[in-house]
């Protein structure tokens, strides 16, 4: 069996629009990617997932909680390269809009959620938590930059020719 690029795809706080766009890209690239890429972690599509030995982790969404921070550090430890995908991962926005709230914005209802779940004080973009090797901006991600980034790693790991 030919070597494949081992990829993980992860979503944190966001609307998951880049995941949806990724599933749209499968309309055209499924047959090719199936030969070249092992999607080892892709909960949008798979029940059986593993973090181990990822070549590239694509991470969508901003980081809203200590639990998410811990998780994304775990991903970093298991991935040779990490790519921030979409506006929320790259800039924090719009998911980080609550960072602009002043006291009067924190209603009792919002405070109830802060008190009952482990929200961080500030929503963070991905590179405020872990080292990020590449970014794919856009809301949703720019599909052409995603395709060129994937191609870059396919070449880097010698899955396809660099010629």
């Amino acid at each position: 069996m030919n070597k494949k690029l081992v990829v993980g795809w992860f979503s944190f706080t966001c609307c998951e629009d880049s995941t949806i766009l990724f599933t749209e890209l499968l309309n055209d690239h499924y047959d090719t990617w199936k030969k070249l890429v092992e999607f080892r972690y892709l909960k949008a599509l798979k029940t059986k997932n593993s973090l181990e030995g990822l070549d590239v982790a694509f991470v969508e969404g901003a980081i809203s909680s200590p639990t998410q921070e811990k998780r994304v550090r775990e991903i970093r430890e298991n991935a040779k390269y990490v790519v921030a995908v979409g506006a929320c991962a790259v800039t924090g926005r719009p998911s980080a809009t609550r960072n602009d709230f002043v006291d009067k914005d924190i209603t009792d209802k919002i405070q109830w959620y802060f008190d009952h779940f482990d929200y961080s004080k500030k929503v963070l973009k991905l590179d405020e938590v872990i080292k990020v090797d590449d970014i794919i901006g856009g809301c949703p991600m720019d599909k052409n930059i995603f395709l060129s980034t994937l191609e870059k790693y396919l070449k880097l790991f010698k899955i396809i020719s660099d010629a």
Partner: protein
Amino acid sequence: MHSGDITIDDITKVEGSACLSVKVANDQVSDLKFIIKDYRRFYTRAVRGKPALTAPSFLSRICGTCSVAHLFASIEAVEKSQGMAVSEQTKILRRLAYDGLMLRDHALHLYFFVLPDILGVDSILDIPDNVNNLGHQLLHDSFYIKRLGSEITDVVIGAAIHAPYPSVGGFLKLPDPGKFPDLITRLENLRPQILRGIKTFFDWKETLVRNSDYLCLRNDKSYDFLEGEIVNSNGKRVPEEKFPEFLDSVVIPYSESEGYVFSDTHEDYLVGSLARINLNRDLLNPKTVADIKDFLTVFPSNNIYHNNLAQAIEMLHCLDDAVEILKNLKISEEKPVRNSPRAGTGVGVVEAPRGTLYHKAAVDDKGMVADYEVIVPTSQNQINIENDLKKYFNDNLGKDEENLRLEAEKIIRAYDPCMSCATNFLKIDWSRA
């Protein structure tokens, strides 16, 4: 038979949106929690003080897969707050775009998430690369369906996700009619594939019957996702503005989302395709009905798995509806309606792919958002999902743990909750007392 507690836990899967916890005592479920775990972004608070004209684009970011539903519900809410009437062309273009949304969104759910359950494989990535294999054919059907759904939205509203052309009052850019003939031809050629999908979901004999209460939008003139009144299976009917009167909000302390029950009976209820087909199937496109008479005989249905069949039927309806619109649509140049700002409140209710979606905008006399509320379908289905799971576990505790886990996921998936919930959301850690 399990004699002690069972824990189904998803705590370590933070990217997942939901998890399930089940406790068993005396061979019965003593406690079951379906927990939505997406962290809130508080967009309805963040939009306050912002120009109402910009609210729809911002609030479409609530959801990636049904952003068009949030966009259109928000536009409707702001338009009504301003007493703004839009043109018939605007209404028909929104309807056409919505057909595209439904095709893409339903196909994603049915083929990418549910089809592997039917085929007995983990994921679409495990479907054999054999053109004669039915799973392979269905998967590749889905690529065409999704692509055409997206192309309709690309042509009409500029994108399938966070579309740029729709605006309060109309469209910032109108579609190029030169692209309609090709879309018509390709949509008409797609009917056999969608009919193959409908038969597949009809033939899938999974069954879970419990609830019999439903709610959706109904427009007596046509099968409409955007306009109508709210009806429920108890015969109650109210205008969109009174939608909250149907509901009592329920705080679910372990979940990031509140739940809802009917305000009069305090019963849980279901929104989504099953509700729509149960209550509105008399309004489906005649061409659709002509080709699926046998499949419609199962409705009204209380089998939650028939939500999948109902979605497949809606795909054919949307295809036929889109073809009709595209064949008859003549585009006239027009600009979005713009009024001087006024203080007011407006409600927009639409049928999102996964159920009834409510936006309410209060706008001040400067045209700024003073208050905003949203009620989403998955919140409304939350208690129903939990009660279905209680029934399932109580009836099936004799089954092995792996089987229970897979079946529980199938039940949740049948509701088509938002994406990461619908797919592979569980990490199971079983423990017994």
